[in-house]
């Protein structure tokens, strides 16, 4: 602070002679802020801890703490005397003057002390963000990952040399003024393995590209990264933030692949970053049969229960000159059983089937083609 914005945060020590309240008020000191810590370990709120030397006199001291133009949660303000234990320097009460961003501490001291006190409070509009930048190698097997810490201070307060603490890693010294934003590198991990994932979800993407009149159906492509020691990570949870992905183009330059937001990735967990759409894998899905069978009727001969006989086919073409593994997600609602399916699947939940379809690269003869055929029955359907 160093006098730059003293109007914002002021602290005054007022000495009150015992017994003659209000009679003789003396301004004792206007202490400077000493060590300041900005704790950013809780993403919901930022805790400021600052130390100030209070010149206390024997008896009752009134310490006035006021803030103007900054947003401090008044209920969060705490004061702790660091030099003398509780029975020598005692905080008696805290009072709030009317219509003022201020409070007054009543402190009882058993002697004249230059007491170091730690004041802590929750300060609004100062926080941190995390952003990621990853550069993939040309064959897309790993990324060089960098993470940047972005400090944003719009609190109304200038911090000149504060110790900044995150929830892991060493504290570091950093000054930051009001309305200033600072971006610094805080994690660098080279050669983090990635898995490239293509996903076709039949509930989200159009089935028949031919019916779209000149629009490509992009198959979403993601990079999967696991936060584990094997990946050169795994020391701490990766905070959520925006990730921008680039790729080495083999000409000592890069191209921008895409960007996504990752949530918090705890140690051992994975994140999938959606970079863009592949238009070189084409899925054409069609319903070839949908008949009602095993009809049950009431006395009026109205159908009250039936099963279905359904066939879905999906033609998957890989026009890429490299192989790919497509994750295909199919949905069958309600009660069902599979009569015949020409590909293996994993049942992810009652109504979701997941296929891992390995697609070879395109050859001289044309695209690599695989065809899925699911013949299933939905059971006990009511009209």
């Amino acid at each position, binding site marked *: 602070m160093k006098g730059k914005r003293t109007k914002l945060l002021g602290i005054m020590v007022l000495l009150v002679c015992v017994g003659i309240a209000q009679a003789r008020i003396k301004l004792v000191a206007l202490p400077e802020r000493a060590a300041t810590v900005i704790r950013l370990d809780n993403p919901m709120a930022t805790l400021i801890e600052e130390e100030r030397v209070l010149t206390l006199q024997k008896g009752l001291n009134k310490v006035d703490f006021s803030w103007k133009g900054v947003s401090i949660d008044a209920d969060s303000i705490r004061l702790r005397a660091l030099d003398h234990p509780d029975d020598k320097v005692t905080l008696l009460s805290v009072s709030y003057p009317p219509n003022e961003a201020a409070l007054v501490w009543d402190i009882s001291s058993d002697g004249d002390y230059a007491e170091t006190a730690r004041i802590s409070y929750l300060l*609004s*509009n*100062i*926080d941190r*963000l995390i*952003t990621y*930048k990853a550069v*993939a190698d*040309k064959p*897309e097997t790993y990324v060089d990952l960098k993470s940047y810490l972005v400090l*944003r201070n719009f609190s109304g307060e200038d911090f000149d040399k504060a110790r900044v603490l995150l929830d892991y890693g060493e504290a570091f010294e950093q000054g930051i*003024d*009001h309305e*200033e*934003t*600072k*971006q*610094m590198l805080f994690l660098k991990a080279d050669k983090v393995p990635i898995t490239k994932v293509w996903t076709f979800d039949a509930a989200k993407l159009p089935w028949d590209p031919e019916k779209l*009149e*000149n*629009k*490509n159906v992009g198959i979403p*492509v993601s990079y999967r990264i696991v936060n584990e020691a094997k990946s050169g990570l795994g020391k701490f949870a990766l905070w959520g933030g925006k990730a921008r992905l680039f*790729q080495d*183009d083999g000409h000592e*330059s*890069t*191209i*921008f*692949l*895409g*960007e*996504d*937001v990752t949530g918090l990735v705890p140690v051992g967990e994975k994140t999938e970053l*959606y*970079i*863009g*759409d*592949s*238009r*070189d894998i*084409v899925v054409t899905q*069609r*319903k*070839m*049969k*949908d*008949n*009602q*069978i095993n*009809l049950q009727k009431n*006395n*009026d*001969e109205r159908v009250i229960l039936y099963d279905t*006989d359904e066939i879905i086919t999906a033609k998957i073409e890989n*026009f*890429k*000159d490299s192989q790919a593994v497509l994750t295909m997600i199919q949905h069958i609602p309600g009660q069902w059983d599979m009569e015949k399916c020409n590909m293996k699947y994993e049942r992810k939940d009652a109504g979701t089937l997941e296929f891992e379809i390995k697609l070879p690269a*395109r050859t001289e003869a044309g*695209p690599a083609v695989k065809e899925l055929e699911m013949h299933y029955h939905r059971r006990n359907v009511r009209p």
Partner: protein
Amino acid sequence: MKRIILALLIITAITGVVWAKVDLVTLPSRDTVQLTIYNSADMTLVRESRALTLKDGKNKLQFSWANTLIDPTSLEMLPKASADKIDIADLTYPPRVRNLGLWNIESGVSGKVPVEITYLTSGLSWRAFYMGTLTEDEKTMRLQGYVRVTNNSGEDYENAQTRLIVGKVHILDQIAELARRQYPYERPGEVPVPPTARPARQMLEEKKEMVDYAFTAYRGMASRPKEIKKEGLSEYFLYTIEGTETITTGWSKRLQSFDVDEVPVVNLYKYEQERYGDPVVRFLSFKNDKEHKLGETPIPGGMLKVYRSADDKGHLSYTGQSSFKYIPVDEDVELNLGAVGDVVVEPTLMDYETENYRFDQKRNISGWDEVRKFKIEVKNTRDITVKVEIQRNFPTQYWKLETNQDFEKVDLDTVKFTLVLEPRSKQAFEYTLTTYHGVRQEDSMRSRER
């Protein structure tokens, strides 16, 4: 116009007085610049190299970009030499100053250091478009592909290596919006405001200035058009334009990306009442493969204007235009040239019957069959051979089709007939469609099982 300014400030670090003396030491210009322009989003990756003269100790590098459309959060600087001795401590966006970043660099070396600065900007764009010229017999087509690069970024990029990305990139924020933010990362707790109605172009036009040169990169090499090198990267294709380009803000430029003659084409006509209505729609069909003299790379989506040679003197007639999607290698291309009158498909209902009525206990109708006899007449009034595809959609999945004509089942309620017609010829065929309704649906399946 030069709007991006790089200034190097050297701080003489007098102990205890950090900001005591700031010297402006050098103003290095761009040595090289590379533009990678996207077309699925308004975004360009700019990579420039500059040589900084650093002093041993603390250096401050100021980068400002007033009146441009740079995304400040994308700024990055990397030393290309002595990387282990140069620590880029932080990038500060100082308070109450817009469009300015300050790098704090701790250098262990003194002297010239090449650095690379990258950032994303808005305002540069490109698109692909095509010209097709059919031969008189319409059996082959000359296909010319072009790209048009436009610079509305507010910055002149001189002698820039220009690269274009074909592909659909996932982005969260529009670069133009990021560029217009008052604070690069916004204020804490702030919900990003959607972009204002003021488009980038308009903003830039407000300070339009006359530029007396636009594309000067052709100096000394005008003997042939530039080539565009194409290569695949991840899910995208990278087009690199030979040499460098100078693209002045406000200008755009057309470059030829390929020129292939005698691409065999099929004159395909489609009829599907539910989709196109009564007229037949003309398509030009070919394949992006070697057989069709293509197939080296995918073809980016764009608009194709098709002409036809009208005579042997090189006169042309305009046939139509079609926008088409991105076409991977080996995929079929079908270009919709619109409705025509010279190929006609006429389906006529020749007979209609209902039969096989079923009744429930109360003598209400519970099931029946509908039998429709259709005659399809196809006329080719053109003097070339054409292929005609006729799709018929049925109102139910319970049906039976009897015909002498070959057909393909497309899905549960659609079939397709394909015919090839000689010049100025007619063909006709008939089919009988039986659809099953009510309890007759069950009967029809039972009979099929048998």
